[in-house]
């Protein structure tokens, strides 16, 4: 059973030339290793376009935001394009407030994010 355990699931898929990283579970300090690993693996595999898909995350805290900021920084360094999808309204708002939306387009659905990056 989950509760306090790290029930986070992070998996990667390819949609054409876009890599979708699915994040299911709490995005807190405990999510750091798994999310960073998935991002690093995608980058080492040559991914230039990435979607972080939060469809199943209901809890993202400030430590989670710090993880995502580090990924934004790393994407900038590697010349990668980054988009986010599946965030509920509250977390979309937080990401805009923090300023993350200037560095990663925020889309409602994964399909929209993939389409936008594919066209980009």
């Amino acid at each position, binding site marked *: *059973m*989950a*509760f*306090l355990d*790290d029930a986070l699931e992070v998996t990667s898929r390819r949609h054409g030339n876009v890599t979708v990283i699915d994040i299911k579970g709490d995005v807190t*300090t*405990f999510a*750091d290793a798994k999310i960073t690993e998935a991002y690093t693996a995608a980058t080492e595999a040559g991914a230039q376009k990435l979607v972080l898909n939060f469809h199943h995350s209901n809890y993202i805290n400030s*430590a989670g935001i*710090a993880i995502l900021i580090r990924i934004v920084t790393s994407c900038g360094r590697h010349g990668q394009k980054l988009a986010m999808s599946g965030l509920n309204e509250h977390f979309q708002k937080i990401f805009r407030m923090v300023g993350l939306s200037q560095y990663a387009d925020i889309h409602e659905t994964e399909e929209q994010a993939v389409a936008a990056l594919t066209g980009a």
Partner: protein
Amino acid sequence: MRRPWSSKRARSTEQPIELRLPSCLGYEKVAMDTAAVIAERMGFGPDRVAGLRTAVSEAVTNAIEHGNQGVRNAEVHVVMAIQDDTLIICVRDQNYHQFDRSYGIQRPDLQRALRGEDVGWGMWLIRQFVDEVEFTGVPNGGNEVRMVLRA
């Protein structure tokens, strides 16, 4: 930022969670909701969670109505312990009022209720929805209902 204390994460053998509620009808909903979200996060399914809601609500209602009846500024304590996949919830009141702890073992008689007799459904409902239930006294002089929900 990297957090050095991320290793100090909660384990299932930690101290329990404690909820202290004013002894007034209505507050049983807070206990019911809190127990439910904990059980949900532990991974219990909707039917188990719904049953737990009823059990906790009835236990806290009894603590308010019977256990603490008449005690000014009384409190109800709800102690919730997560032990691996098991959730243990103890509901404690403050006014020791000895009662028949075999209540609710037998199904209350609907026919009698339909004839207008007083029939209590609470203790019986509690027994239907948790895997284990025990009614005891606590050292400080109150009743405790201990309910166990297993995966």
